[in-house]
């Protein structure tokens, strides 16, 4: 059995199609520099633009009327805004994990997906960041959460997890952005050099920040990149841990749980990889990037999903066990309410989406079936959203005093803002694909260089065709 799995692993190449350094540069760089894009790009971007307008409308109406346009109430004081915040932050996790941790662990296969995943991180955190800002009753004073010196000497209240959130999320966003940009500099230089139009030359020239491919540049670049990777690594763990503390610090049954930090981190990676797959699979097909985003990549991402999914599922089981073992009537009621209460369908759907269906990934055949992988990734995305819905809503809607129990139903404006951010995210991702190399060109070349050393036969003819990466090129 085990042998069979080993045998059916995809072939061990991370770059297929017999690429040379030149062909890699051309293949990736031309997506940005050419004006020919698949029709799908136009269709998806147009749909996403509608989403952006939905977002703008939803925000405008929200600011005019107040959060009462949403379905939140007493006792469910947090609704879609917080669910979506946690969901987006989770999606943002794959980027840093792929860029930083896998870099430190010298996982070469990360190379072809890290750029993409980092971009996803940045846009997902942008979406996430919108929600806490907008969900407060008075968004115009939301800056009070920042420790800004002011004449009233009124500081934030540092015991509140919401303050920790502010620090965690802003740090995460800043570091992710820097990391992404740093990694882009050599590629911007490549594009600057290859661009034919003046405007592109100027813009990429500015973005390249004077990169001249000197050995000194490369030396400093490597040091900076490694440092940022080291800096990002704890953030992968900290951000979602702290987000989970928003819940774990409270005393509400269903929130007051010590397992939340690791369980949230695992869930975040789970949903992050699901989102990478969701995006990579179609774009890989539309831009014909199968040579760089090989079946091997998909296979490994699927395996990570399977692993983190199991951790998440373990979390669900432990929550139930704790409720049973605590002999705490409120916890026990909560568990029963999740299984059989008014929101039970969502809970069962969550178990099926996150726990049951991903188990098919044990089968290598499924992992190599691109269409199936895409569907499973979508299902996991939905499942992780349901998980946050169940945590936020079912815990709040029936807590201690039955007299205050209530129900939560989202309104059209809840959906508007949520779908709006999905539109915004997609819009930004497709702009990214259009204007920035979606796969790191120089790292792919580097990868080719390194893999060629192990497979010299494949690259001997091409090695001399382009300058080796680490030599200086004068513009």
């Amino acid at each position, binding site marked *: 059995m085990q042998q069979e799995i080993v045998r059916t692993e995809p072939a061990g190449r991370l770059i297929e199609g017999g690429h040379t350094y030149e062909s890699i540069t051309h293949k990736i760089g031309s997506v940005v520099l050419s004006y020919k894009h698949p029709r799908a790009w136009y269709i998806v971007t147009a749909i996403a633009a509608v989403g952006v307008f939905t977002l703008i409308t939803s925000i405008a109406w929200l600011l005019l009327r107040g959060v*009462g346009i949403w379905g939140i109430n*007493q006792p469910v004081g947090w609704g879609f805004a917080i669910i979506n915040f946690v969901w987006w932050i989770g999606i943002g996790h794959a980027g840093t994990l792929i860029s930083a941790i896998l870099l430190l662990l010298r996982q070469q296969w990360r190379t072809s997906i890290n750029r993409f995943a980092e971009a996803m991180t940045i846009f997902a955190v942008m979406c996430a960041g919108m929600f806490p800002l907008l969900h407060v009753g008075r968004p115009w004073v939301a800056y009070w959460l920042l420790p800004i010196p002011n004449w009233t000497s*009124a500081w934030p209240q540092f015991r509140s997890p919401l*303050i920790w959130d502010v620090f965690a999320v802003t740090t995460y966003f800043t570091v992710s952005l820097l990391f992404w940009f740093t990694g882009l500099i050599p590629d911007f230089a490549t594009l600057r050099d290859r661009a034919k139009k003046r405007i592109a030359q100027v813009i990429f020239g500015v973005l390249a920040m004077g990169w001249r491919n000197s050995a000194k540049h490369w030396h400093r670049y490597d040091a900076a990149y490694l440092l940022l990777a080291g800096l990002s690594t704890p953030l992968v763990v900290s951000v979602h841990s702290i987000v989970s503390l*928003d819940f774990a610090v409270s005393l509400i049954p269903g929130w007051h749980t010590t397992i939340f930090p690791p369980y949230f981190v695992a869930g975040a990676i789970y949903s992050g990889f699901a989102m990478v797959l969701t995006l990579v699979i179609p774009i890989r097909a539309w831009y014909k990037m199968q040579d760089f985003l090989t079946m091997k990549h998909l296979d490994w991402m699927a395996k990570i999903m399977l692993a983190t999914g199991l951790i998440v599922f373990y979390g669900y089981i432990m929550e139930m066990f704790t409720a049973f073992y605590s002999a705490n009537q409120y916890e026990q009621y909560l568990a029963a309410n999740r299984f059989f209460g008014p929101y039970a369908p969502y809970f069962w759907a969550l178990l099926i989406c996150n726990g049951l269906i991903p188990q098919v990934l044990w089968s290598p055949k499924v992992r190599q079936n691109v269409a199936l992988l895409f569907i499973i990734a979508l299902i996991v995305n939905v499942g992780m959203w349901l998980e946050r819905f169940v945590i936020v809503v079912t815990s709040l809607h029936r807590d*201690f005093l039955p007299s205050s*129990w209530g129900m939560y139903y989202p309104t059209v404006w809840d959906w508007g803002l949520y779908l709006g951010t999905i539109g915004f995210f997609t819009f930004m991702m497709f702009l990214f694909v259009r204007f920035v190399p979606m796969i790191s060109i120089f790292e792919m070349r580097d990868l080719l260089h390194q893999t060629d050393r192990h497979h010299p036969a494949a690259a001997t003819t091409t090695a001399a065709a382009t300058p080796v990466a680490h030599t200086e090129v004068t513009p």
Partner: protein
Amino acid sequence: MDNKQHQPLNLEEIRKRLAQARGQQYWRSLEEIAESEEFQQILEKEFPRQSSPLGAFLHRRQFLKLMGASLALAGLTSCRPLSMRKIVPQVQQPEEMIPGKPLYFASAFSIGGYARGVLVESHEGRPTKIEGNAKHPASPGPGGVVNPQAPAQLNPDGTPKHIGATDAFTQASILTLYDPDRSQSPMYQGQLSAWTDFNAALAAEMAKQAAVRGAGLRILTENVTSPTLAALIQELLKKYPQAKWHQYEPTHNDNALEGAKIAFGTPVNTIYRFDRADVILSLDGDFLYSGPASVRYAHDYATRRQVRYGTTQMNRLYVVESTPTVTGSAADHRLPLRPSQIGAFALALAKAVGLPVSAPQLPAEQQRWVDAVARDLQAHRSRCVVVVGESQPPEIHALVHAINHALGNAGQTVVYTQPVEANPVNHIESLRDLVQDMAAGKVETLIILGGNPAYNAPADMEFARLLKELTQRNGFTVHLSQYEDETSALCLWHIPESHYLETWGDSRAFDGTVSIVQPLIEPLYPSRSAIELVDNLLGRQRNSYDIVQAYWSKQLGTANFQKAWRKALHDGVIAGTALPPRPVKMRLDAVASAAQKVSAPAEGLEIVLAPDPTVWDGRFANNGWLQELPKPLSHLTWDNAAFVSPATAQKMGLQMDTGGLANIVDVVELRYRGEKLRAPVWIMPGQPDDCVTLFLGYGRTRAGKVGTGIGYNAYKVRFSDALWTASGATLVKTGERYPLASTQQHHSMHGRDLVHVGTLDEFRKDPKHLVKAAAHEEPLPTMYPEHTWEGNAWAMVIDTSLCIGCNACVTACQAENNIPIVGKEQVARGREMHWIRIDRYYEGGLDNPSTHLLPVPCMQCENAPCEPVCPVGATNHSEEGLNQMVYNRCVGTRYCSNNCPYKVRRFNFLKYNDPKEPVLQLLNNPDVTVRGRGVMEKCTYCVQRINAARIEAKKLGREIQDGEVITACQAACPTHAIIFGNMNDRQSLVAQLRQQPHRYSLLEELNTRPRTTYLAKVRNPNPELEGA
């Protein structure tokens, strides 16, 4: 396109309307006038949209008219001299007036003619809050009714010490004063008119009537207890001997008076002395909530129900009722019976206590009840009381009088006096006379003083049709009322009536005590009181002050009148005007023969018609506070529903979906005597089977912006011979569904120790037993050093044995703390704003569950879970133990509310406090911040009152004394179940109550250490009935 309808633009009308506006209202009114719907209608009528002046041919004259109108409108915004008189700046401050410090004035608020004494808080001449006047018999304070002769004692901050309890209606009556929908101008045939025109028309009409000695003159009033008004009407009747005075009050106590006539041969007023009663049996009588003495009765009842360490005695309450009521929920034993079964029950009881009546055979369970109750009553002869509700027929009232006599209660727990009413007539018969005269064409001039008979007269009298016909055939019909309502619309003239806080008057309490109704403010709009209008009928133009003073100077004697008058105003009562007990002679034979007329229990469906617990007979329909006040037990807001029992609902397949936001309920059609009424059902645990209760007061068509068009109108099936109960109706499920907004969706405690309940016996054996499940001897462990609370440590104790769920605290809190109303849709979403709520839990079967009530304000936890989670420190702790909200600092994350295990925090999801009407801003308490959108708010223990007391105590160089700070909820509570004070003061009442063995904290296991704690609920069940 039809241009021949054009009439000249009635600029006069606009001018008249403008003439009504005065004072600060002036500029704002102009905008309102220019934009108001009525004005739009006038414009539309004059310049129909279809005939656009540009598109269609425009006559030169029409063009000029249009220009003229434009100019007139332009002129509206320009100047009219506000006052031509000299004004004098306030160089010297008037005595007693200190800006920022409220003054209190005694007055009286009446429902159905009966006064409740009030002390009105006035800020710079602007009444903002109503408290009870403990010197008044209907609004006792914690120590009972204060002797009016005793000199007034004030706290250092100026609040009187004799603040008494109130009911929710009294608390909410201040909102009516500032209601922007109040009528502001006389209306003639539905058009704005001027006072001068009305005066002239009235004078002409009265001259016409004088010629025929008033043969066509009829006065229709509500129930009148006012001596001044009665004297004026008598004077009028003397001047116009052929004229007639009719009274109609939709919820009047006709049955009680008729019953007294049977029993004693004369109508008497019955006063119960629950403070002397050990055993109480109520037959369909909601004495703790309804009626003119409810606050007093609740107080008296509670005095014998305070269970403290060492208590061995408490009263016992049996309730037999046809609709779950406040009184029923407080009962130790409750038996739901259909109204007609209650008659049989009363007969059986009468027989059991030895009266010569024959009783029908009762079902075993009822018979067991009768036997047990009869034994208990007889064991407490002259210390028990049997109460009967107005909905029972006169025969049962007579029978109950006889039972009380047989038990030796007369003169002890039941006291009789002369009727309080100035002219005690049977209101239905009185209205019937009028209606017959109207039908016969004998009525030419009909003056309706208050009331709304076109809406609430019995359906068979067809009052509305007759009134309309009378007006149509040039009858002179006048309606004086605060709102231009259903009756006003059918009258020739509508005259705005002054609110009781705007005019002078007088009124009697349930025991006859007279109060002078003292105004707090000049009328907001030119208006008249009933007294002034009757004075006008007499051809005089005196103001209310002169009229009332003239009457009382005659009564009190001219010597020392000024002193007596001042004293009466100051105290709020005229001492010695309570009616003395009068001896009565029981006519047993008459009672026995009347008893034979008691009909056997009816078969089939029965209807109960009850005044709504919050909008009453409809008079409070436009009062938003009362509309949004959760009705006792059902916690329904903004609607009336038809109560059916769970078994009846099951039988008929009626559903009530409580799973969502609103309760989506089935709509039924009730068919009775050819009338059809559609009503949403409410499945009410404890409702007797085959009995549907309809609530009066809804289905208003001209109540105002708040009250129009909500609920169903139960008056449509109210007939003069079946005012309260009826049988022979059919109920049909329509298949329609309707959303109802209730503030509590879950009714069981789910096995949680929220209300601790035990019996008196258990308490006697082991007082701690009741709360054993929750109480910990030692404080729960904590990782942090214990904080010692020094100085004042504010705390509250709520006695759950005493809470009857009357909602007075909820409304009092709303009035004191500027709490907005949010409307039905927002309530259904779960966004009501009340800072204190009364949780209601059921225990036991669906058919007759026990009800447990738990008032929940903020717990002011010492370890408050809300505080550490606020990211901006907007909620924090004071040194005195208050969990404070800094509204200005609140960002609105709602994390505090999520983390509050008691869910007492309230959030401004939308801009709820947004008075479009400037007049409503006058209502706000200036000592309490008005919260804006996006801000969390919650109970503060009335911190503004604490601070007022603190300032004065500091000035005196001493600590705040116990009793100097009374929270709004505490002040209003009729049973004094809420006690507030400084728990560090060993002598304070709250500190003593915190030592009680049956005290417990809600959700103690969470270690929040609430400052608000509870005393367990102690019941006093009859062992004979318990456990069966």
